[in-house]
């Protein structure tokens, strides 16, 4: 099993979700994040004090998947999340040792 994590632009979430569904992935977990890299933030002004806010809003998407599908899912996500402008984000995958579905206790591929 693999855990694929994608840190993407918030307004691409819908596309990524739709693309994954079309591919056949029927579950995922989403959370809010901020980040920076090449893309930097913006300036804010409060009563004459100017701040640079470095961190840009991002969304983190996590998908548990069987090993065989991992590469394809990465490709699906990368394609759907891409706008071509800096700050599009990163996708990475980690090896998972155990997976359990809480409701049933099923393990491994059955847990997905």
């Amino acid at each position, binding site marked *: 099993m693999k855990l694929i994590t994608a840190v993407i632009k918030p307004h691409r979430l819908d596309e990524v979700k739709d693309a994954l569904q079309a591919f056949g992935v029927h579950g995922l977990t989403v959370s809010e994040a901020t980040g920076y890299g090449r893309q930097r933030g*913006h*300036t*804010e002004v409060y009563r004459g004090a*100017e701040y640079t*806010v*470095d961190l840009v809003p991002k969304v983190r998407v996590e998908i548990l998947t069987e090993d065989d599908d991992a590469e394809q899912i990465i490709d699906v996500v990368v394609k759907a999340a891409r706008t071509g402008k800096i700050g599009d984000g990163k996708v990475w995958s980690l090896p998972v040792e155990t997976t359990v579905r809480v409701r049933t206790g099923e393990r491994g591929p059955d847990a997905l």
Partner: protein
Amino acid sequence: MNLEEVQSSTNIAYVVICAAMVMLMTPGLAFFYGGMVRVKSALNMLMMSFVSLGIVSVLWVLYGFSLTFSETSTSPILGNLDFIGFQDITVDQGELLAFAVFQLMFAILTPALMSGALADRVKFTGWVLFVVLWVTVVYFPVAHWVWAVDQGWLFNQGVIDFAGGTAVHINAGAGGLAAALVVGKRIGFKKDPMRPHNLPMVLLGAGLLWFGWFGFNAGSALSPNGTAAMMALNTQLATGAAILGWLIYERLRHGAFTTLGAASGAIAGLVAITPSGANVNPMGAILIGVLAGAVCAWAVSLKYKLGFDDSLDVVGVHLVGGVLGTLLVGFLATEGAGLEQFGKQALGAASVMAYSFVVTYLIALLVERTIGFRASEDEEVAGLDLAYHAETGYDFSQTGSGSVPVSAVPGAAGAAVTGEKKVDA
């Protein structure tokens, strides 16, 4: 001290306090609208109302009050310049001064109402220019038509518009539609969800609007009398009934009693009762309210059917509610109801609607062609708050600084100070 002076003192007390209440409607509107947009442009929505408080106050003294209410004008179309700069008005004219500040609040609110049609996608400078032109070319004349006693042509036609069904709501509704057509749809209209970011704020706005509307409606009697009291009662009744009308429609049609529906219903009822004053009785007020609630609840879906992006339903609520209220007085007026009065009401509604729509369309085009009205795509996607106001609405983060490390940058007029915030030093 004589009787007239004491009555005048009473009138001043009444109108000054009502003016303060109507002032509060513009911040109220700001919250009503501001809560309805997505978080990334919420401040911009608030600012569209607040800047109207600034702009129109100044224009009013310069020429607005004179163009609208100069006492010596003989034109049915526009006032003259006698009151320019309030040059000859002194503290001896207390009632006139009270009237001036009371009516100023209406002139502030009306353009602000249109901002709802333009949510999330217009340049702030474009909006400022638009407000300047609009109050000058649309609001001041139309208010003169309707309210300049024995002067304005609609007034002389016998159109009943106690507190602003035509001059305020139809005017803003038609103008909002025209401006929205020029500006175009929000990116993602009909496709993306654009749910309100703060519904309690919408209710706060509705509550403040409701409160202020007693000043708006009952205050329009200018002297506290039976008419004022009846108007206060009718205002409450129509508003309450409209909440019920909207909620029932919504429950039948969409299966839920929504908070946004209750707030919207209240505004629809307030709009619809505005023209009637004490010309309808309490049962009439309830009828107007319940109809306004249900009809406006239906009307807000028109934008999806017809495909114009009147983002926060200025048409569905203010134009439709205003027309409904203006026409219903024709039939429900306790005196003189009938086809003839209905005809007059229709004339008032139609002429204000047509004038406002056409002229606003041209103004919006002018703004777009000159300094630009529509925001750029990048600005709109990132949110107008950052683009024009360099601010973020909320920061509830644990770090107390938005989990956002902040460092100084070269500002508009300052040197870079790396690693810390740049200040005006």
